[in-house]
């Protein structure tokens, strides 16, 4: 979709800072001394399992949840004690929450009228925002006359119409079918390209959405932030077991750390096999080796180990055909390992001994935590 550039795009500016924010619901801690910095103009995704506190964090930024402790700032302004109406935010929720008795135009104009903007300015801004999300042909429709994807676009236009400092998205794609969700994800990415100054806090339980859209990701569990970083770095180098398992598929193999070698590498032992992996500051002799299933390939059984790769003997247990990929389930030194490969012409039979290959740089050493 071709969008007109937002004439007022530059006015979207302002990061979010949450410092030591604690929220309790009737004694239960939903958010525990939570800290988060979202740079102006960036997209930060909050992900985590149900009940981890991600929506509470977003609602605290919006002002719908009052923190028991801590401070929240938007664009450098302390908004902790301010009502939502005074925070300069736009928000889109899972149900879109379009006002059912108002047309598309009235929905988008609502915030501007509530702020007492003059009629001509409201009409111009509404037209601009509807064009921005490609809904200018649906101005007089009621929400019930729109599809889920169209309702979502109107909700985004309504949130953007007031030129908010930050845009808060609470699982905005969860109610959509998979194909529409993928299309809307692309549209959200395109929207942010059109509005590069817009700061977005995006809550989702879908790691794919977070990886596709966000420049940074924070992973929450039990009201705490367990990991945070640039999306690719967090995926490539998860700092702990939870992050590795929650963000993408991961094989976590128990290994013994034998020693450090030059060049920031370490030697670990998995069964009888020695492997070279990037060193990490791991205390103790035991660690977890994180390998993504798609970073492992099959090697010839006779292949020799080189500095550029690790070889791992394994026994094939099961082969699953998944259409676009083959998933192999193998046994390595008594531990289960999954390998995702492009479709195989002749998949090996279960029980076959195989050699696996992976580049040292594709492995991550994590602190040992029981599963």
């Amino acid at each position: 979709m071709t969008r007109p550039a937002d004439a007022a795009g530059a006015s979207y500016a302002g990061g979010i800072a949450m410092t030591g924010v604690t929220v309790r619901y009737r004694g239960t801690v939903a958010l525990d001394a939570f800290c988060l910095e979202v740079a102006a103009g960036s997209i930060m995704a909050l992900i985590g399992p149900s009940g981890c506190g991600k929506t509470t964090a977003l609602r605290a930024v919006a002002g719908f949840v009052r923190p028991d402790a801590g401070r929240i700032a938007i664009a450098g302004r302390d908004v902790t004690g301010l009502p939502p109406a005074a925070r300069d935010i736009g928000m889109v929720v899972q149900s879109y929450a379009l006002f059912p008795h108002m047309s598309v135009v009235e929905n988008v104009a609502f915030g501007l009228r509530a702020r007492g903007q003059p009629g001509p300015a409201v009409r111009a801004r509404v037209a601009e925002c509807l064009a921005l999300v490609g809904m200018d042909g649906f101005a007089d429709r009621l929400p019930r006359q729109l599809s889920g994807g169209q309702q979502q676009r109107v909700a985004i236009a309504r949130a953007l119409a007031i030129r908010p400092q930050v845009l808060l998205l609470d699982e905005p794609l969860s109610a959509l079918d998979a194909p529409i969700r993928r299309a809307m994800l692309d549209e959200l990415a395109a929207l942010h390209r059109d509005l590069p100054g817009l700061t977005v806090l995006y809550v989702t339980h879908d790691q794919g959405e977070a990886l596709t859209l966000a420049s940074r990701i924070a992973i929450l569990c039990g009201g705490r932030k367990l990991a945070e970083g640039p999306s690719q770095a967090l995926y490539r180098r998860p700092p702990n077991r939870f992050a590795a398992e929650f963000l993408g598929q991961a094989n976590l193999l128990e290994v013994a750390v034998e020693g450090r070698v030059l060049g920031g590498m370490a030697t670990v032992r998995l069964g009888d096999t020695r492997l070279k992996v990037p060193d990490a500051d791991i205390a103790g002799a035991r660690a977890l080796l994180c390998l993504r299933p798609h970073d492992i390939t099959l090697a010839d059984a006779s292949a020799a180990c080189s500095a550029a790769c690790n070889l791992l003997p394994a026994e094939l247990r099961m082969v699953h055909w998944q259409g676009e990929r083959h998933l192999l389930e193998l046994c390595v030194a008594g531990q289960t390992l999954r390998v995702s490969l492009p479709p195989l012409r002749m998949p090996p039979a279960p029980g076959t001994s195989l050699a696996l290959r992976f580049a040292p740089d594709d492995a991550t050493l994590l602190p040992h935590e029981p599963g």
Partner: protein
Amino acid sequence: MLLWSAAARSTAWTVLGLLLLLVYGVPLGLILLASLTGQWNGVLPSHMTLSHLAGTLRAEPAAQLRASVLTGLAASLAALAFGTWAALALRRVRGGARRWLELVFFLPSALPSISVGLGLLVAFSRPPLLLNGTVWIVLAAHFVMVSAFAYGMVAAGLAQLPAELEQIAESLGAGPLYRLRRITLPLLAPQLLAAFSLGFALSMGELGATVMVYPPSWVTLPVGIFGLSDRGAVFDAAALTVLLAAGTVAVLAGAARLQRLAGGK
């Protein structure tokens, strides 16, 4: 559908139709018949006449209809305003306080109407608030009788309203009054009209409390009907009942029309 065969379904519909006719149709039909009757000594009436219905056009029944409609409108509108305010205010209250306040708001619906009338009579028959003998005590009685229903209907409507709608409105910069005017009340319109209609219908038929407190200058139709039937003028009472039903239906039809217009957008 619990009944699978067409024969079973038609039998069930027939039985239901007969029951409804027996419970609702027969009494209403007999009242209409009685209003047209000059004499009713046997199984069927005789000497059919329009004189009883024509009598309702006289000054006294017209005044009673006017008193009933004005009382119903005033009481149901006041109850609607109070019930809406109470339901909105109680949304902010949590825990035990909320349960107690809900009990207080619902209490009038649990009291016998005659007790409400007696209570008002005792409370307002002496200074500092002397309402006995005025229209105001009738209005107060009707307000008490219908307020709980108005509160209940509005509270049920509010409970169904997604909280996200008002929250999004708030995030867009709308203050409390703007949200109430543009979001909450328009979305509650069906419940508000239903609460008004129920309150008006209940008020139009209210007798127990009214008969305890009404002044001679403000006789409502139910009091008039009661007085006529007490004096043995059953056919005149039936004609007044037809007038009462017609007045009630006319106002309720107007409210329904308003509701359709509001919901037609």
